[in-house]
């Protein structure tokens, strides 16, 4: 059987998730290349590909209408499309700008009016094309990505957690951030990362976005009452990675 053709594409993002794909180390990466044929991946090779694809990894959010034809072209060519990383999945941190009107001035200064810098509300790529699977995270968890690829190679549906980070903290007996007077967003954040941040003494910031049905109101209450966060801050706290998953989505 011919090896599945795999390609990477990027839209509005930092390309950090693609870099993560090169962080497996030589033995793992070279072994993986025995099972997939990477035909386009600008972080690591200069070749481009116009052929049909088995798996398209799309990084970055959909924030410019001008990008739609390119997304549609990728969709037409690919059997499987994976939203690769939080920007592609929900627009992640890009969606922070959705709630501001003066970002162009602050980011680009005197060049703010240049036409190619114009962009719309940042959304996940599934707002433009059908997405088959999601690799969440800022950046993606490279081991989870390896399992997603393995599952697809074996003809199985990848298993992506829809439970909160608390589950993973408890499994590894991490002391709860709330027990040490800190805050945490783990109760509504999607797991799958293995909860490394609270284990290192850092609150979860929900970089994999929310679970499908987060209880955001309860989180605001707990951040206010237990973590002592001012009410307004508690309400906006999750916006860094979940602006498009909250009740006040633009």
């Amino acid at each position: 059987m011919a090896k599945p053709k795999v390609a990477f594409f990027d839209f509005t993002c930092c390309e950090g998730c693609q870099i993560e794909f090169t962080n497996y180390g030589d033995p793992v990466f070279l072994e993986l290349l025995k099972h997939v044929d990477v035909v386009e991946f600008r972080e690591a090779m200069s070749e481009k590909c116009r052929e049909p694809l088995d798996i398209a990894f799309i990084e970055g959010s959909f924030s410019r209408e001008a990008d739609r034809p390119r997304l549609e072209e990728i969709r037409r060519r690919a059997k499987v499309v994976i939203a690769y990383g939080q920007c592609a999945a929900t627009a992640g941190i890009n969606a922070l700008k959705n709630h501001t009107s003066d970002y162009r001035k602050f980011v680009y200064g005197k060049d703010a009016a240049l036409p190619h810098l114009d962009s719309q509300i940042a959304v996940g790529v599934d707002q433009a094309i059908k997405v088959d699977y999601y690799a969440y995270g800022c950046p993606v968890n490279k081991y989870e990505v390896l399992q997603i690829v393995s599952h697809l190679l074996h003809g199985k549906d990848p298993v992506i957690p829809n439970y909160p980070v608390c589950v993973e903290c408890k499994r590894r007996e991490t002391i709860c951030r709330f027990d040490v007077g800190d805050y945490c967003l783990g109760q509504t954040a999607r797991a799958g990362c293995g909860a490394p941040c609270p284990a290192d003494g850092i609150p979860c910031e929900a970089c994999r976005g929310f679970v499908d049905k987060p209880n955001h109101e309860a989180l605001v209450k707990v951040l206010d009452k237990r973590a002592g966060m001012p009410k307004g801050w508690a309400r906006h706290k999750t916006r860094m990675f979940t602006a498009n998953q909250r009740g006040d989505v633009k």
Partner: protein
Amino acid sequence: MSFHFIKDQDFPAFLSGLIKARTVVGPVAKTSRQQEKFVFARLTDPAALRLDYDVTILPPKKEFFPPKQNLLLFDGPRVTPGIEPEEKVLFGVHPYDMKALDMTDALFREKNEDRNYTAHREAATVVVSSVQKVSPRAFWASIGTEVKPKGHDAWLTKVAGGCVYEAVTAKGEALLQHGKFAAASEEQKKAARRADEEAARQCPEKLQGTSASNAKKVRAAFSREELWTKFAQDCFSCGSCNTVCPTCYCFDVQDWWHVDQNTGGRTRTWDSCLTEDFAKISLGAGAQENFREERAERFRHRFMRKAAYLNEKLGGPACVGCGRCSAACTADIADPTAVINSIPEA
């Protein structure tokens, strides 16, 4: 059954001897920002054992039913089972956790015996330790009092000048060779009983009613949707209450592959009925159904399981009053005493 006594000054040598002879797992401290919590961990240094712990983050069931357990490893068509029993001593289990182990023992043994659990359990010697410090959310003195711990091999109680060691089984008796023990006097045995009674009096929370009356009223409240919706209003479905519970035993099984795509494993992971996807099932042809889709239904299900559904099978409620769920719930809505006490009598 025989009662022995070991002096405080002889205790470290007993532990050292034990550690030299066997794998010993016991409660040790874990800290973050000067907050001290406890976990069961493998002992290398006898001084690390903290029998003055109040409660551990996870219950000792993890020694036999770990959060992640390989059921098998495969290399192409060749399969290796994941059962690797190790003769270990589980030292310092609180009596409420022993009751919980008795329950998981029964549940994994019934019908199709689960050797992934029982093989590890049988290889262990379990030494119970009386509670020296009661945790802030404990209510073990007021729940399922008709059920007594029974699966332990020995029971250790701190008294003035040393510890009383009650050897219950031959396995418990066998540990005596590692330390300097004398026969316990009647006075020391009495002091051990008093220590247990005193700890029970210190439980800060209390469940009202009897196991039977609570089972009855919790069951009767099943259809009172407004009650469960109110209880679950601040529920995150985060699964913390399930994940720290000593009597929860549900798991999910998934396959995984190494990057060579030929070797890999089949792993079971603790599952949690509070989480949204727990009851999501396939209807075939790509269709799905979630038979506990609402947060309140899942919240209610936990109380049905803990207070009513398993009572006949276990002889009492499937809750031992450790208070781990109450402490782990950041919204503080999981406390079984608060919920069950507030359900009106049927």
